[in-house]
């Protein structure tokens, strides 16, 4: 038992154990955080989709398809349109018939009456009941508790729907929604031959079986069927969760790298102190294997407690930092991490330690014993570099195992790691050159430069580590702050919480007055025309689109919401082509030439789905005839922004001859719901969508993402500081001996301090230069992966220079003991 504690008496082992504890803490925190995010991601996506897999069709699935999905947790729903009649009022609604399993994920937000507070429900309406949207109450002048006839079936209105979990904020159907029990469907009599329905079989299950099910079903889909899984869902493609997921993966890569560097430095120190023992063992006849196991064996057991403590702390910090939403997560945080991830969290720091310990330890068995005993082993520059490269490959491989983003983020990591090693190697000849020229410099500078240039085994790893640490701190600061800024911009405190559709020109004065009266803040108004895509390049759509694309796309057989605009909406980015409004200097001067260009900008995903490209000529059928336009640009749209977004945006003036309504979104302060009723009373034909629940959810996601991002940033900084500490503490013994000798030979304290200042300034200054170069170069790949708006050069690029000063001061602080080492120690016993 005492053998387990023996290594702890040594300072270098304590430093190594600290490095491993922090490595375990940081890696496990990131692993658990990622698992947590992945689960929330998947659950959010599954909620939005309605299941882990959704098979949608215009009629009942085939028996064999039903058999395949029968082994899973399923819910069957049918969406259809119907007209409600109540007294003298008619209203077209989107109806949904749900079974008892609905919803598979999430909860339905309901209210007892028009202006009551919301409550959650985990199942659909009972037979004989119907839930309706607010607009149904307003339009039909009906209340909760009243009877509403759907088709032939009278149903009791028992609640008002505020939000369905799988109801996204798109505008597929702007009709008010009702939900009834599927057992009442037949009695309604609305299902008949030719009735247009959308049947969805929603499936819930674990990822691997779902994936296999998807592959099976995909082989034999009917033309009217489509299959969507959480991996396909649009929610993944953009938004804070995607950015955070990538950032978390990058953090894993960088933390692996930094912790590896810290372990390398601490292990080097330890190896130096064990060199004599290694030489002695070999002089006694021990084999290389025996030397390694004797040196490594007990230490491996001795560091285990440090790793376990670190991993446990990492898991604990995630539990206390991330909020729990038991309705979504289920049994709590730890269930988010799989047993494999637990094991990975425990093994990852040990793997890092082995990766960095073994190359260093191998020097003790590679170098002849006599050289070790005579302390003559001197690493060549080449062998030091090879060792470093071999050691640095370990975190890259480890990160590849821990994340699935090595392909996506590998460029960034590769750049940082490669430059982190290459730049110091490039700086090395400069340092050597400075040594050659140093004869003209003052004594303190000469001695400082000699210390750096004559000890590659000490200087190079420290230079690499400092460069990497400074780079990571700079990138963490800049990326983290830009992410937070991005998210704050995406969802400002007064993000629109309502959408209004079907406004007419004549409604504007009343609408604007209402907005002003209630301190509401509105987004730009967009003119809207409903149209159906009929031809592409003169060819009818049914012929122009391939069978595979046609079957997967629901936009071909329905009216699309078209708009025109001269200013590119803020939530859109042009991917290719040119925005038709860019060259319009004066919005009021719509030249005939410009209108005649008949340009349209198309959303990228729909363009990809339909095989559309720049220059294609499109024809739309509207209530007033045809609309023709040529695709002038393709756009990426942030569908999660709370602004009106469109697949097709025409150039201004295209709708001159069309029937236009207007759409916009606005922010309404908290208050009485009667204000909305007032607006509806004033403008009864408008459609009003309350997206407050969605907004609250998005804000909650962003709040959690911000917390997680801050935590990641803190972990990165912690790891970087660990590297700094390991680097600065290592080499202190050598400095102490050097300083003692200088004092014995007559050197004054001032000279010794001067040497230390210059030594650390040169080291940290070189690292700062390298870090600035690397962080500038890394901007491009980071920008490409994480940000849409771009990340530009900022004040963060000056951080390495500030860090250089900080490192110098820390170095001097760490060297206090070395500074005060008495010259008398030279007369005492050597070494330890």
């Amino acid at each position: 038992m005492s053998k387990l504690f023996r290594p702890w008496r040594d300072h270098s082992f304590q430093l190594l154990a600290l490095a491993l504890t922090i490595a375990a803490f940081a890696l496990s925190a990131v692993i658990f955080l990622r698992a947590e995010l992945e689960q929330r991601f998947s659950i959010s996506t599954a909620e939005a989709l309605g299941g882990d897999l959704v098979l949608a069709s215009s009629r009942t699935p085939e028996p064999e398809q039903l058999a395949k999905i029968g082994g899973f947790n399923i819910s069957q729903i049918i969406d259809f349109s119907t007209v409600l009649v109540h007294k003298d009022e008619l209203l077209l609604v989107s109806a949904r018939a749900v079974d008892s399993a609905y919803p598979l994920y999430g909860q339905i937000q309901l209210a007892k009456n028009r202006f009551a507070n919301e409550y959650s429900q985990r199942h659909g309406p009972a037979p004989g009941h119907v839930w309706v949207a607010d607009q149904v109450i307003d339009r039909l002048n009906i209340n909760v508790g009243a009877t509403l006839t759907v088709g032939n079936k009278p149903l009791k209105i028992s609640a008002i729907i505020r939000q369905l979990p799988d109801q996204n904020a798109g505008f597929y159907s702007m009709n008010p929604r009702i939900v009834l029990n599927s057992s009442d469907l037949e009695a309604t009599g609305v299902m008949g031959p030719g009735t247009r329905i959308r049947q969805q079989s929603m499936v819930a299950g674990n990822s691997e079986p779902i994936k296999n099910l998807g592959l099976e079903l995909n082989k034999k889909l009917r033309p009217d069927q489509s299959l969507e899984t959480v991996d396909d869902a649009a929610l993944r493609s953009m938004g804070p969760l995607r950015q955070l997921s990538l950032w978390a993966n990058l953090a894993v890569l960088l933390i692996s790298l930094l912790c590896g560097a810290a372990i390398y430095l601490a292990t080097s120190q330890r190896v130096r102190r064990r060199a004599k023992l290694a030489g002695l063992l070999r002089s006694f006849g021990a084999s290389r294997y025996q030397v390694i196991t004797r040196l490594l064996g007990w230490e491996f057991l001795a560091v285990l407690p440090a790793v376990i403590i670190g991993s446990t702390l990492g898991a604990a910090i995630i539990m206390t930092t991330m909020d729990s939403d038991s309705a979504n997560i289920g049994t709590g945080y730890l269930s988010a991490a799989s047993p494999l991830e637990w094991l990975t969290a425990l093994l990852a720091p040990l793997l890092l330690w082995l990766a960095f310990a073994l190359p260093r330890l191998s020097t003790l068995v590679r170098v002849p014993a006599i050289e070790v005993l005579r302390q003559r082993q001197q690493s060549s520059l080449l062998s030091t570099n090879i060792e470093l490269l071999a050691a640095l490959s370990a975190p890259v491989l480890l990160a590849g195992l821990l994340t699935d983003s090595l392909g996506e983020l590998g460029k960034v990591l590769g750049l940082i790691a490669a430059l982190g090693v290459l730049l110091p190697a490039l700086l090395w000849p400069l340092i050597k050159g400075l040594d050659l020229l140093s004869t003209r410099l003052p004594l303190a500078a000469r001695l400082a430069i000699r210390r750096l240039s004559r000890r590659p085994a000490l200087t190079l790893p420290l230079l690499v580590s400092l460069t990497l640490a400074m780079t990571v701190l700079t990138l963490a600061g800049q990326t983290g702050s830009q992410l937070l800024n991005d998210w704050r911009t995406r969802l400002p405190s007064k993000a629109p919480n309502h959408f209004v559709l079907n406004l007419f020109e004549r409604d504007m004065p009343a609408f604007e007055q209402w907005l002003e009266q209630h301190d509401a803040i509105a987004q730009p108004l967009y003119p809207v025309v409903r149209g159906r895509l009929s031809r592409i390049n003169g060819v009818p759509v049914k012929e122009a689109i391939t069978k595979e694309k046609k079957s997967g796309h629901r936009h071909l057989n329905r009216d699309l919401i078209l708009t025109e605009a001269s200013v590119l909406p803020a939530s859109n980015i042009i991917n290719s082509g040119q925005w038709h409004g860019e060259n319009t200097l004066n919005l009021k001067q719509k030249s005939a030439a410009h209108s005649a260009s008949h340009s349209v900008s198309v959303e990228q995903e729909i363009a990809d789905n339909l095989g559309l490209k720049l220059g294609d000529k499109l024809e739309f059928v509207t209530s007033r005839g045809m609309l023709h336009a040529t695709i002038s640009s393709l756009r990426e749209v942030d569908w999660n922004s709370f602004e009106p977004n469109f697949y097709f945006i025409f150039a201004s003036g295209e709708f001159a001859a069309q029937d236009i309504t207007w759409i916009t979104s606005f922010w309404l302060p908290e208050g009485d719901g009667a204000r909305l009723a007032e607006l509806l009373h004033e403008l009864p034909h408008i459609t009003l969508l309350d997206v407050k629940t969605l907004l609250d959810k998005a804000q909650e996601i962003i709040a959690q993402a911000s917390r997680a991002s801050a935590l990641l940033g803190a972990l990165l900084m912690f790891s970087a500081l660990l590297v700094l500490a390991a680097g600065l503490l290592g080499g202190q013994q050598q400095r102490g001996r050097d300083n003692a000798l200088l004092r014995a030979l007559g050197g004054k304290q001032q000279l010794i301090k001067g040497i230390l200042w210059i030594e650390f300034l040169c080291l940290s200054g070189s690292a700062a230069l390298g870090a600035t170069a690397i962080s500038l170069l890394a901007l491009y790949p980071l920008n490409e992966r994480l940000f849409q708006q771009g990340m530009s050069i900022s004040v963060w690029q000056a951080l390495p220079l500030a860090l250089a000063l900080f490192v110098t001061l820390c170095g001097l602080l760490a060297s206090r003991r070395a500074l005060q080492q008495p010259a008398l120690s030279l007369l005492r016993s050597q070494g330890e």
Partner: protein
Amino acid sequence: MPQQVAPLLEVGNIAKRVQGPEGELTLLEDIDFTLSAGESLAITGPSGSGKTTLLGLLAGLDTPSQGEIRLNGSAFSSLSEDQRASHRGATCAFVFQEFHLVADMNVLENVMLPLELAGRAKPAAIAKDWLERVGLGHRIRHFPATLSGGEQQRVALARAFAVQPRLLFADEPTGSLDYANGKRVIDLLFELNQHSGAALVLVTHDPQLASRCQHHLELHEGKIMNIAFAEEKPIEESVIEKFIHQTHPS
């Protein structure tokens, strides 16, 4: 008539006490002697007798708990750390048992180091000269790791004598060497010392080596057990003149 030379080193009733785990520990007590320029003193005694402690005090690497040490007329032991370092650099030199060469400086740079610290002019030329004298002129660009123990100690001797010290401290200079190399080094030490006219304080456990010194101070448990100072011999004027010329060239 031979001139009487004032003592270079005056040790006045010094003691050294430290706090140990079981209370105060007396390392040295009642140490009292003087040493003049050109004289040699061997300090002997068993392990733990306080030899190294005494050497440290004499060299100003440590301060006594009691008493005073005067070096070249100045109250050495009461100076500050920096003042002692400065004084030490100007007056003293060391030869250590473990050589203590700087591993990442070549032989020439090692010998130049104390000269640079003292701000001497043309340190490289002086260093080269001394390396020639110790027979290592052909290895000035070599690093200590490539030298044998004897060669390293010769470099240490060159480093010590290059600054023309008035007082040379040698702490078991042959302790890390074999007999043949040790004899060679010690012969060189005494030869160079005789030519330089510096006083020599030699810590050794070797009675034969001790017998080569003029004076002998034997310690036991921190106290002087035996002290044998040879009669004061007049120093030849030529030696004095040579010494003065070397230390104060004008």
